[in-house]
């Protein structure tokens, strides 16, 4: 830190000049009154000249401040003027008491010059000038006290200078400290403003409204929030949050805020124009001030509307699906009544023609019976699917001996193997034993798989392998028939998708057998899969747990 004293002196130049000018003006007059006639004109001229010079200097420096480097040289001019007046006066009067002027000059230098180098220069110059004048004059004992007086004045001047210098330095340090402090304060304030602006921009740049509130009153928010509700930001500051919520929900929100510190809730909000819309509020208490809550607010009106549309669509789809299933169930019933008559009469005709040995009518009526039976199978399958989909199919669980059931199924299906000239082979593992399952459903599934196998195989081999696997039983039905194309596999187990529509004509069936089997299997907690190679054959693998468990509302009865 530079402890420069020029600025302190700079402002003093002009007033000191005027005061000295005034003083020398007064001396000009007092010289005329006091001094003898031979000296007076000279002293009046010097004092008057000094007064004029000082007045001009004061006037000039008042308008044009002395440049800082010239402050001490100009101040030294005062020493020069005062010293010159005092020494000339002393020289002309030759009285020792006038040495006091020199002493006063020396003390003034000590008070006035804060810069030590310029102080020394002025003191030394004054002493040299004084000694020079003294050496040109006669001394007597009367002078002795005044010589000591000059020495004392010099000492006083030095002390005055040191004391002032010390005070000045101290003040300078204090001033610098104060300046630094205010600079720092300004910097901190600037940074704080910048930070505030940055965070505000950040908060305004989000897509969600942000609000801070204390005791239910908003004390800050971002622009997004204000705009969401149709307000200017300043309009919402200080207002209670309940101004922005539909009045019906006030007590709910109040209860919620009283009981929950952090959470998400949905509420109906009130726009400035009075319209209502849905918002989602995620809020929590933050440790900013006591009990301040921050909340992030999102307008979820469009989301809500979409949700409602979707829910309506879902309900409509479910209703349509149920209606379809109900329709199928009713339809199958309506179809059964005329079919009963058709089959009954066909059988009657068949019986009567048999009695009368009418071969052609026997054959024809038999064809009607076969076709009717096929139609009945289709109706039964459709009804099964409808029952599964409307959850009206009920299960009866009981313990059964698996080998026995499998043998029964095989003997039921045996005639159908012969239709396509297929050989049947049964492989039963030794550890296959007891199962807890719906017997009729298991029978239906196995018949479906075996029927399917023989339907799509001619002059081939059908193998049913039963083994225990993973606390359940695995039923593999393998054939070497036409197999299934890979692009048909995806929809193989869906309803009404026989691999090829032409198959329906060629091979018969509804295409519902696998769909029913798969759904029954799902309900009973099992799994079904297929491995197939077009032209080589297929293997369907049905796995069911040894102890089937079904949700209670689907259970018809439990036999132990």
């Amino acid at each position, binding site marked *: 830190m530079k402890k420069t004293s020029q600025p302190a002196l700079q402002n003093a130049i002009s007033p000191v000049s005027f005061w000295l000018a005034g003083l020398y003006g007064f001396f000009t007059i007092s010289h005329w009154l006091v001094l003898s006639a031979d000296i007076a004109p000279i002293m009046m001229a010097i004092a008057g000249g000094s007064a004029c010079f000082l007045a001009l200097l004061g006037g000039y420096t008042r308008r044009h401040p002395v440049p800082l480097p010239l402050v001490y040289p100009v101040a030294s001019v005062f020493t020069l003027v005062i010293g010159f007046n005092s020494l000339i006066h002393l020289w002309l009067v030759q009285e020792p008491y006038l040495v006091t002027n020199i002493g006063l000059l020396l003390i003034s230098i000590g008070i006035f010059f804060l810069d030590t180098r310029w102080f020394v220069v002025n003191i030394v110059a004054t002493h040299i000038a004084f000694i020079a004048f003294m050496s040109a004059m006669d001394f007597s004992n009367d002078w002795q006290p005044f010589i000591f007086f000059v020495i004392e004045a010099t000492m006083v001047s030095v002390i005055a200078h040191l004391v002032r210098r010390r005070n000045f330095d101290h003040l300078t340090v204090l001033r610098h400290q104060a300046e630094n402090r205010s600079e720092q304060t300004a910097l901190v304030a600037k940074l704080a403003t910048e930070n505030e602006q940055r965070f505000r921009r950040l908060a305004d740049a989000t897509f969600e409204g942000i609000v801070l509130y204390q005791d239910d009153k908003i004390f800050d928010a971002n622009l997004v929030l204000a705009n969401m509700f149709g307000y200017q930001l300043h309009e919402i500051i200080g207002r209670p949050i309940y101004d922005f919520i539909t009045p019906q929900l006030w007590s709910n929100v109040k209860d919620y805020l009283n009981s929950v510190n952090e959470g998400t809730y949905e509420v109906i909000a009130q726009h400035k124009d009075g319209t209502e819309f849905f918002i989602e509020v995620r809020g929590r208490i933050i440790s900013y001030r006591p009990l301040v809550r921050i909340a992030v607010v999102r307008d979820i009106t469009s989301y809500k509307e979409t949700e409602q549309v979707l829910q309506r669509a879902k309900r409509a789809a479910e209703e349509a699906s149920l209606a379809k299933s109900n329709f199928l*169930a009713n339809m*199958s*019933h309506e179809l*059964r*009544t005329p*079919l*009963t*008559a*058709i*089959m*009954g*009469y066909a*059988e*009657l005709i068949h*019986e*009567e023609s048999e009695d009368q040995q009418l071969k052609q009518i026997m054959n024809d009526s038999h064809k009607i019976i076969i076709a*009717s039976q096929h139609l*009945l199978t289709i109706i*039964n399958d459709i*009804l099964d699917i409808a*029952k599964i989909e409307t959850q*009206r*199919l*009920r299960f009866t669980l009981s313990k059964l001996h698996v080998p026995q059931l499998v043998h029964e199924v095989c003997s039921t299906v045996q005639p159908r193997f012969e239709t396509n000239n297929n050989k049947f082979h049964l492989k039963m593992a030794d550890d296959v034993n007891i199962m807890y399952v719906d017997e009729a459903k298991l029978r239906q599934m196995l018949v479906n798989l075996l029927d399917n196998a023989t339907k799509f195989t001619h002059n081939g081999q059908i193998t049913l392998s039963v083994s225990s696997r993973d606390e359940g039983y695995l039923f593999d039905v393998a054939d070497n028939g036409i197999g299934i194309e890979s692009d048909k596999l995806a929809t193989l187990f869906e309803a009404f998708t026989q691999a090829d529509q032409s198959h329906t004509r060629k091979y018969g069936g509804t295409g519902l057998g696998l769909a029913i089997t798969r759904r029954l299997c799902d309900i009973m907690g099992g799994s079904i899969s297929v491995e197939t190679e077009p032209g080589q054959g297929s293997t369907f693998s049905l796995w069911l747990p040894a102890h089937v468990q079904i949700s209670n509302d689907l259970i*018809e009865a439990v036999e132990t």
Partner: protein
Amino acid sequence: MARILLVEDNLMNRDMLARRLVRRGHDVLIAKNGREAIELAQIEDPDLILMDMSLPEVDGWEATRAIKESTKTRAIPIIALTAHALQSDRDRSLEVGCDDFDTKPVKFPRLQAKIDMLLQENPELKERYSS
């Protein structure tokens, strides 16, 4: 063989079933609705009743309940016939007092087997058969 009361409102089904039962040597009585069925059961005391469940006026469920409530007709076995293939229909018919249940379209050999079994179970009829 036996006197069977056939309760059926549908003309064709009634005709067809009656003729097929007659072919197997049964005497067939006809009722076109539940009310007639209750009356004929009282008057004629058939050996067995084949009861269609969806009937006009008094339906099969009500007729069965009435027949089974009367001490005179209680012993007559009843086989319910319905086009409803749902398990709940089967339960409901057994609940109102039917002795057996079959679905339409009728598979005659199966129905015949059920008829035979019920007739054999009935000791009174057994006696009549044996004589």
